[in-house]
């Protein structure tokens, strides 16, 4: 935290509305961040930003695993504690070019691995919903992870929007826990150049904001082809999927109610036994409300869902073990001198010192898991098997959507399917930080991703919208929950439009 910078800036005279917004956000950060721990570095307010650019006046926070040349990129890891990238990520460049003020870098789970944002060298992020100023109290909640800092920053009003990354739910889960909008665009729409790889085949740059128009405003700028990203979707495919989804949107719906005639699928597998009852009821109300406004509700089945979580953890860990190999104390990371007892005739011992000291517990766990999955003996049973399941999950989705998946070699034909899917974003509300400490070492925390992982495996557009209840049974303000809108690959604008409608029918009565 660069508090001194913020103080200095806040004394400067207000020159324009956007200038004042920028300073206001920095003042809010200065006031609230000590208790929330959302930001790990804050930038100096830019002096002159042209007023007529698409993102002029917008303050955007960036997750600390996205490279910036003007602030460190630590990935919340001891390994990269002092690392400053020589270049800016493509998304950061686009934001700046379009007038956005990159207000700072946000806390996250180490290298994006975690569901609660408790695995961070900067300490855990506290959910703004119940954050207290004096130390950790019994009722303090986790923000969710891994993009917990970005979600909390938006929830606490520290910025207008925030970038996160979503590999298996790392945007949607914290959005749900913090009560903000979290959007994971379709894989390949937003450039990953400059995003520190956790699992390349799943990593997606996502967005947080308090309303859909802000999400749309930023998304429209960053969703462009980038030659630096080999997985960036070619323009022709983007346009095909876009025009197809717009056709669905305009053929039968009026401007005022896009819900009229919209076919919404409810996947039966997305209400597992682990789901808290406090989640089911509000989601049911949302579905009812959508139906009463003209949407056609169709129960659908995605039978491979129950295997998705296992598949995800094998694939993501395998890719992580590969991507994190460069942090060895020789190429990257602080070199840890081998102690006197270390057998130096073995090269591996030299690397082991640095990697043992500089990686956190969760990262080490996943590297070990992934290394095993790729070993000659396990490859067939784990990695290849997980890949097969991933294909089954994709097939499941392709079988229910009315629009084919244009991001595959052989997009299917148009059929009588649903336009979007709707399901709860998470199986529960934000856990208490105190109890999450106990979960650090257990695999139970992985279950939180069970509802978000399938869309990641299939590379689909997925949006979590907060569900706002007027009151709950106790009469107190209920913990935030989220409802997810999932659409076929490339139908991001359709998903955002449906999300806007879902937000508009709230608060629920």
């Amino acid at each position, binding site marked *: 935290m660069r508090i001194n910078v913020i103080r200095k800036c806040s004394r400067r005279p207000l020159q324009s509305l956007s200038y004042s917004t920028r300073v206001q956000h920095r003042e809010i950060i200065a006031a609230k961040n000590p208790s929330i721990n959302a930001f790990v570095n804050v930038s100096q307010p830019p002096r002159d930003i042209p007023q007529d650019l698409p993102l002029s006046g917008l303050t955007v926070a960036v997750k600390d695993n996205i490279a910036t040349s003007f602030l460190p*990129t630590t990935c919340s890891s001891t390994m990269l504690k002092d690392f400053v*990238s020589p270049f800016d990520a493509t998304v950061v460049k686009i934001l700046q070019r379009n007038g956005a003020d990159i207000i700072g870098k946000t806390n996250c789970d180490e290298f994006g691995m975690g569901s609660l944002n408790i695995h961070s060298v900067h300490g855990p992020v506290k959910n703004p919903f119940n954050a207290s100023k004096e130390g950790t109290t019994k009722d303090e909640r986790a923000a969710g992870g891994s993009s917990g800092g970005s979600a909390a920053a938006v929830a606490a009003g520290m910025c207008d929007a925030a970038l996160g990354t979503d590999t298996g739910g790392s945007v949607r889960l914290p959005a749900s826990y913090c009560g903000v909008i979290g959007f994971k665009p379709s894989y390949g729409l937003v450039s990953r*150049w400059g995003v520190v*790889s956790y699992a390349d085949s799943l990593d997606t740059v996502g967005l947080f904001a308090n309303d859909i128009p802000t999400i749309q405003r930023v998304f429209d700028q960053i969703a462009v082809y980038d030659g630096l990203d*080999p*997985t960036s979707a070619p323009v022709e495919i983007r346009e095909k999927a876009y025009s197809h989804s717009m056709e669905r949107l305009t053929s039968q719906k009026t401007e005022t109610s896009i819900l009229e005639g919209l076919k919404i699928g409810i996947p039966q597998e997305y209400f597992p036994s682990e789901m808290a009852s406090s989640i089911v009821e509000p989601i049911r109300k949302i579905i009812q409300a959508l139906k009463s406004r003209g949407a056609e509700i169709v129960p659908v089945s995605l039978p491979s869902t129950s295997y998705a979580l296992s598949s995800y953890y094998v694939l993501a860990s395998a890719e992580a073990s590969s991507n994190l190999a460069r942090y060895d104390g*020789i190429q990257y990371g602080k070199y840890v001198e081998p102690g006197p007892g270390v057998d130096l005739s073995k090269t*591996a011992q030299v690397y082991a010192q640095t990697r043992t000291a500089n990686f956190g517990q969760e990262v080490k766990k996943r590297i070990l898991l992934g290394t095993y999955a*790729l070993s*000659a003996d396990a490859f067939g049973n784990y990695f290849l098997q997980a890949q097969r399941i991933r294909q089954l999950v994709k097939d499941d989705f392709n079988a229910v959507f009315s629009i084919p998946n244009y991001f595959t070699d052989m997009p299917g034909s148009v059929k009588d399917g649903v336009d979007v899917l709707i399901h709860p974003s998470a199986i529960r509300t934000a856990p208490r930080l105190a109890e999450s400490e106990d979960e650090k070492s257990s695999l139970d925390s992985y279950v939180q991703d069970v509802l978000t992982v399938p869309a990641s495996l299939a590379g689909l557009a997925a949006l979590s919208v907060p569900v706002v209840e007027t009151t709950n049974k106790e009469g107190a303000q209920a913990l935030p929950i989220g409802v997810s809108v999932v659409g076929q690959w490339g139908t991001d604008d359709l998903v955002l439009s449906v999300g806007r409608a879902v937000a508009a029918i709230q608060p629920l009565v």
Partner: protein
Amino acid sequence: MFLRPLAVHRTKHRLFHDLRTYKEDPRWPGWQVIIGIETHAQIKSRRKLFSDSFTSTPDDTPNTNVSAFDAAFPGTLPKTNSKAVDLALRTSLALRCKINARSSFDRKHYFYSDLTSGYQITQQYSPLARDGELSLHSLDSPITVRIKQIQLEQDTAKSTFDSRGSRSQIDLNRAGTGLMEIVSEPDMRSPEEAGAYVRALQSILRAMGSSDGNMEQGSLRCDVNVSVNRKGDPPGTRCEIKNLNSVRFMMAAISKMSCLQTFSLKLINQPAHEIKRQKEFLISNPGSSVPQETRGFNEDTFETFRLRSKEDAPDYRYMPDPNLGTLALSQSRIDEIRNNMPPLPWELRSKILDKYPSLKDKEQSLDVLLNVDNGREVGFDGEDGAGAVEYFERLCQAPKRDPIVILNWMTHELLGQLAARKQSFYQNSLTSEQLGELVDLLQDKIITGTSGKYLLRHMLDNPSSKSPKEIAAELQLVAIASSSGTSKASDAGSSPSSELEILCKAAISELPSEVAAFRAGNKNVLNKILGHVMKKSRGRANAKEVRHIVEKLALGDNHNGDL
């Protein structure tokens, strides 16, 4: 460049189907040597395989051609260089491989300081091309070696160990340069065949412009697998020799390996006391090299990369690269490459013979020309560097010249003079226009052969854009014509016919005893008189004409009144 567990070797050997019939080798009678070769050829693309940075030569300052991706900066991603892929495709087609329409990239993991990302991107599961062949014409009994596969992969950085400072130095210039790994089937049976294979491969790589193929500079590296078995037995345990940097050394290493293996296998088959005797011999001869080299068969100590990670099981944890995915090649792209391929060395030969049939009697000179052409500087990204054949063809074309004369002048005079100057053909300063005019001057008898050679030497020593005609005039090399000769050199000012005859007359008067002897019938002495005239003319005189004039003058035709 991958090592399988020993068990896999054995399984593979059991399935081994030998296409070659056994042929006795006097060096190891009763034994068969089986050789397979893996070559790594650096792709001669301007840029690296997955980044925009330039490829380097060994002379470049270390760590100057390095991008963020080459240094494995967090957040960087690969981008396939299609020009490097095209060069590998050219090579695959030249080696008659089947192109894989959908190949893929995989990561091979190991920790080493010259591997920045902790993995090398290669093509483990689905290589670029498969099932090719290479015919070795240069052997006394030509054979065909099957090519198992060709795959693309990244080169590593270069580490040099500074023993004085006791530290490793890493040069990232090489990191990420494209390599073609070309794997042969174990189809070779002697060091000579292995040598012929590598030489043929080098000539194909150069002809395709896909690699310099230079073993000394490391742009071509060979790993040789050798196994030895008794006649009729299945192949023995495979041993690998790595990082050989010349064809000659490779052949020597194979011979040595073969001898050692037969020796050690014989040992195993000896009665127990014989082994004991050998053991005692070795113990009592500590300075002997035998134990050292026998230990070299131990796979644990022989393979270079095992030094790298001996303690870890060599499990490279291959994983499909999640960024690059499938390398899809359309038929039209493959066709386009096929249609625009430079000719192979032997194709070029027959093409030239078709075009210039008169060269059939000049095959030796033609082979010299083709060899020089094959050794030409390879251009980047397959751009054709001007070679000797192109130079030759330009000379032959306009104006039309006699290909035999051109070939003689190129191979004997030009290449000879370049060789004397320790210059390669690439360094030749003489343009084809200049050499063409020089040959024309000769053909038109404006200068003599001797003057022509002198003029060539002069022009190589003093490169300029002047025409040979100008220079010949400056140097006063224009031939002295006889009275009856063509008067093309009339611009020399004086009357050339009289000049030659004056020289001859002078010789006759300066050498009276020789002339007398000649008149008396001693024909041999004529050469001395001719030599005298030639010397006086400084090579400008035509020997035939001089002979004619001297004979006329000496043998009494000197009553001719017009003199």
